[in-house]
């Protein structure tokens, strides 16, 4: 079980789009087991709350529920980790329009999915330091309605 928090800051770049900053916090709980030696599989569920604010006073507040399954395998010095999951989000986006003195807002719901594969090698030095080199590919997709 793990609480988690994330803080994001995106500065304005060359175009006219405003930058934004955001934060999210939540909790994840999972359970896993080792059905075979050097193989671990598990599942987790998470809940998080997001808050994003743009420099033009636009904002988004919402919540997300995530489901995830994962597994890992070890063979000698090699390892392979895989995971896949889905997320459902619901929130409200708002944008201040100064000229008309209004703050239009709308509800947003969305869903997404993702998967990742990570593999690598692990070695131990004579000084007792474990080093690990890995390569991973993460795919994510999200859609709002």
């Amino acid at each position, binding site marked *: 079980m793990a609480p988690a928090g994330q803080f994001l800051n995106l500065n304005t770049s060359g175009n006219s789009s405003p930058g934004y900053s955001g934060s999210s916090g939540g909790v994840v709980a999972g359970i896993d087991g080792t059905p075979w030696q050097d193989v671990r599989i598990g599942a987790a569920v998470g809940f998080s709350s997001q808050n994003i604010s743009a420099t033009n006073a636009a904002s988004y507040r919402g919540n997300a529920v995530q489901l995830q399954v994962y597994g890992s395998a070890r063979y000698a010095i090699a390892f392979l980790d895989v995971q896949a999951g889905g997320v459902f989000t619901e929130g409200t*986006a708002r944008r201040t329009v100064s000229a008309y003195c209004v703050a*239009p807002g709308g509800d947003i719901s969305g869903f997404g999915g993702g998967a990742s594969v990570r593999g690598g090698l692990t070695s131990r030095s004579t000084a007792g330091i474990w080093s690990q080199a890995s*390569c991973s590919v993460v795919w994510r997709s999200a859609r709002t309605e």
Partner: protein
Amino acid sequence: MGRLGCKVGGGSVASLQSLIGIRADRRVPVGETSTILPSVHVGWAYEMLDTSAQAKAGFLGVPGSSFAVTTPPFGRTSLVVGAQGALETGTPLQLFASYTAALSSNTTAQTVTAGMRYTW
């Protein structure tokens, strides 16, 4: 300030990111039964798909008022650095905490995680 209804249209965003990295950690005995496992990691990430997201919206009751909002693009490449610590208590309970930062040309994303693992 008044309130005005807004209908937010659908949109989608996709990401395919590769990450190459290295990690180092060491077990440090503390007392007779406990062990601390500090670790550090560094990596290089590359985003192969979308670097910005777009949403379409319009004011309720105002035909033809639809507009699109696009986020500024974030960098395709980023440097990922972080540190983690775990405490093995000599019991089925293990505590851990980690910090990771992903730094690109105009984006900073920081993630803090703490938790506990119970093994039976």
